[in-house]
């Protein structure tokens, strides 16, 4: 029974509208591919490394397709064709492309079965590696099941080795999840940097080697602490599916993954990123990686009291996108946030209503709940109290992924001591208020119930409107975070291609085949 008096009918209607929004967009997605989707295929075939100018090999391979062929046939066609034609190995073809010694030929497309036949031996290895990682994680997690929100902290030193020091300290203090924040601007790079890195602004480069270094360190702590420590990075920006693939291989556990975030906050072209997102979510579903969506960010830009319904509307849509990628609900870390101005009368009640509403509407989703950021100031003491309020709601409404607020949010990326204080606070609240949420019920049609009901109502209305205009046009009207983005604008638009009838991506086909139908 809903503690908030939410109407299940209304929820169903909103979900139904969102389904239509997603279906329309999916129709578009299915007809297209992108540079990064193709590079992802290359990576999943086992191709990695950089050339002497630091250009990643997957980029070189896809560039070859674009320069000498029609990208609409897809990289799988091309590679299968050359392998078959030359009767050689993938490595050989890739090496030739890299050394610029492969003479371009006119490709006569193979049948999809043939493409798969040529490539299967290569991608099978990665697919198996991913399945093995999934099993390792599952086994690890049997060790210690959590009956409370996972404590999630970020590290952001810019240096992967210093990140390791910080991450281990945090894990030993009680953090369950470590997110390695990416350096400013990586999302706009149309390639993935390579190797271990020690330089970054406000974050560390997402590279496969960095993933590996951190994974290894956290596995060590997991064993020491007898508690699985989750690793998070960002499958977002122009390389969304590539990073998803890298994460799947290196056993990341969560990935920030939301094209709406990229569109709105990174000005990434919407067509590009919706297509990328689809493949990235299939990969994450296959790897059993939890995604984190970015609706919380709407409230850092717009007013959290006025715009709460946009968060809910977007969550409904994001849920449908995930379902289309055969992602089960228990991997959908839908995002929301505690961002109401603390000087507003009864602001806490509205936050409580919203948080519990999300919990009731998405009962299986591992909700990602974000701490106050916008109204944090240089007054670190006050900030610590704001975080306490946030922790109370997180704990008592049973959110799943508890992103810990830092008292120094408005000052700097976290110091080791800031993170400690955040963990200490969350632990104290979890303990002293353990069953508070179970104990309380709310006045019928009081401020809390009404707030939740109104937000649901407004969200439903908004999704209906989006449905009317279509998602792309709605985005150009600024429905989310008041930010307007056009269909043709934004970064990465040139990397989008309509698929040729001969287009093939055997990997996504295989992944989808092995995933259960979920909606």
């Amino acid at each position: 029974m809903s503690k908030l008096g939410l109407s299940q009918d209304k929820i169903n209607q909103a979900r139904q509208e969102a389904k239509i929004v997603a279906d329309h967009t999916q129709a578009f997605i299915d007809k297209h591919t992108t540079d990064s989707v193709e590079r992802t295929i290359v990576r999943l075939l086992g191709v990695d490394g950089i050339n002497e100018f630091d250009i990643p090999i997957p980029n070189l391979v896809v560039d070859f397709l674009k320069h000498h062929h029609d990208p609409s046939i897809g990289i799988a066609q091309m590679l299968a064709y050359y392998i078959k034609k030359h009767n050689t190995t993938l490595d050989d073809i890739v090496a030739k492309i890299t050394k610029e010694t492969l003479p371009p030929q006119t490709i006569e497309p193979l049948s999809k079965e043939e493409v798969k036949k040529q490539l299967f031996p290569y991608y099978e290895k990665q697919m198996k590696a991913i399945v093995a990682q999934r099993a390792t994680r599952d086994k690890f997690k049997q060790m210690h099941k959590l009956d409370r929100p996972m404590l999630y902290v970020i590290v952001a030193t810019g240096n992967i080795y210093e990140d390791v020091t910080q991450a281990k300290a945090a894990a030993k203090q009680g953090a369950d999840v470590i997110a390695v924040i990416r350096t400013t601007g990586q999302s706009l790079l149309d390639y993935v940097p390579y190797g271990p890195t020690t330089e970054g602004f406000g974050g560390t480069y997402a590279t496969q080697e960095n993933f590996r270094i951190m994974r290894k360190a956290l596995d060590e702590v997991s064993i020491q602490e007898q508690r699985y420590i989750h690793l998070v990075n960002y499958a977002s920006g122009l390389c969304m599916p590539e990073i998803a693939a890298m994460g799947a291989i290196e056993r990341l556990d969560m990935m920030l993954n939301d094209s709406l975030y990229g569109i709105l906050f990174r000005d990434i072209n919407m067509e590009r990123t919706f297509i990328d997102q689809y493949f990235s979510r299939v990969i994450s579903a296959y790897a059993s990686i939890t995604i984190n969506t970015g609706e919380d960010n709407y409230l850092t830009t717009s007013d959290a009291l006025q715009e709460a319904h946009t968060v809910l509307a977007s969550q409904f849509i994001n849920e449908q996108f995930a379902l289309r990628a055969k992602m089960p609900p228990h991997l959908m870390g839908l995002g929301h946030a505690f961002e109401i101005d603390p000087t507003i009368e009864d602001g806490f009640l509205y936050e409580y209503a919203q948080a519990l509403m999300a919990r009731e509407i998405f009962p299986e989703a591992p909700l990602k709940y974000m701490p106050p950021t916008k109204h944090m100031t240089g007054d670190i003491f006050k900030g610590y109290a704001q975080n306490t309020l946030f922790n109370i709601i997180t704990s008592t409404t049973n959110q799943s992924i508890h992103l810990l607020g830092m008292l120094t949010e408005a000052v700097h990326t976290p110091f080791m001591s800031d993170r400690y204080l955040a963990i200490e606070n969350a632990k104290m609240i979890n303990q002293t208020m353990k069953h508070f949420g179970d104990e309380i019920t709310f006045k019928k049609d009081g401020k809390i119930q009404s707030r939740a009901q109104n937000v649901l109502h407004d969200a439903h209305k908004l999704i209906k409107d989006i449905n009317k205009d279509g998602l792309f046009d709605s985005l150009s009207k600024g429905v989310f975070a008041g930010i307007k983005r056009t269909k043709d604008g934004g970064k990465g638009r040139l990397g989008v291609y309509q698929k040729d009838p001969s287009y093939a991506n055997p990997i996504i086909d295989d992944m989808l085949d092995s995933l259960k139908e979920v909606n």
Partner: protein
Amino acid sequence: MGYNLDNKIKDTNKNNKNILPYGDTMNDGKVQLSFTLPVKNDEKGYQAALKTAQNMTLENVMIADSITLEEEFTMYIAYGTLTNGVNYDDIHVEEAVKHTLSKDEIEEKIKLHFDKPIVVVGASTGTDAHTVGIDAIMNMKGFAGHYGLERYKGIDTYNLGSQVENEDLVQFAKDKNADVLLISQTVTQKDVHIKNLIHLIELLEAEQMRKDFLVIIGGARITGSLAKELGFDAGFGPKKFAEDVATFFVEELINQKSIKNQ
């Protein structure tokens, strides 16, 4: 013994030549500290923490708590007494704006002194994706109850949003014949903002356009002194709103005109 058994503060009158921190008595010099040392949380670490605080010239240091962050990292919370004060009378500051005018007053001044609108171009530049600050200054609805410049009569505004390259900004300003450039910078890690701002100044100078615009910067960590030091006309930090910056540029533009007219 080393203990001053009568450690009352001798002079509890405020002395502008030697302003000291205040705990609960004038001139008691009390300061709160916290820091982490890469040491074990034991007696030796405690002594290291004491000495660290003493290195900051603090006396009567009290380590209120020592908290183990990791085997080899300990956080200390401490209080101490600073005896070396600041000569307040010696501090001379030049504030960009002495008395902030109201929106009405600003509009009145513009009406009086300008026959065409003042053109203002704003952006969050470089890799910076934070727009809430520049929007607070420029957008119609403003921020915290202060309307933005868009709503001002006599001001034409262009807000280019975020991640704008300096080159693009300057080109745009030239095209629009701008009077004022407003640059917002939020990310300051590893002084990325300083690099970006110096680059802008160099660009303007290279193109001999530095004098064509008032160039004003703002952001959470921007101060007037920093702006001046980097070669900008003014800088505005937190708790500053459209009327603060508008007061500055309107008055400054009037000044410049009157100088030219002389």
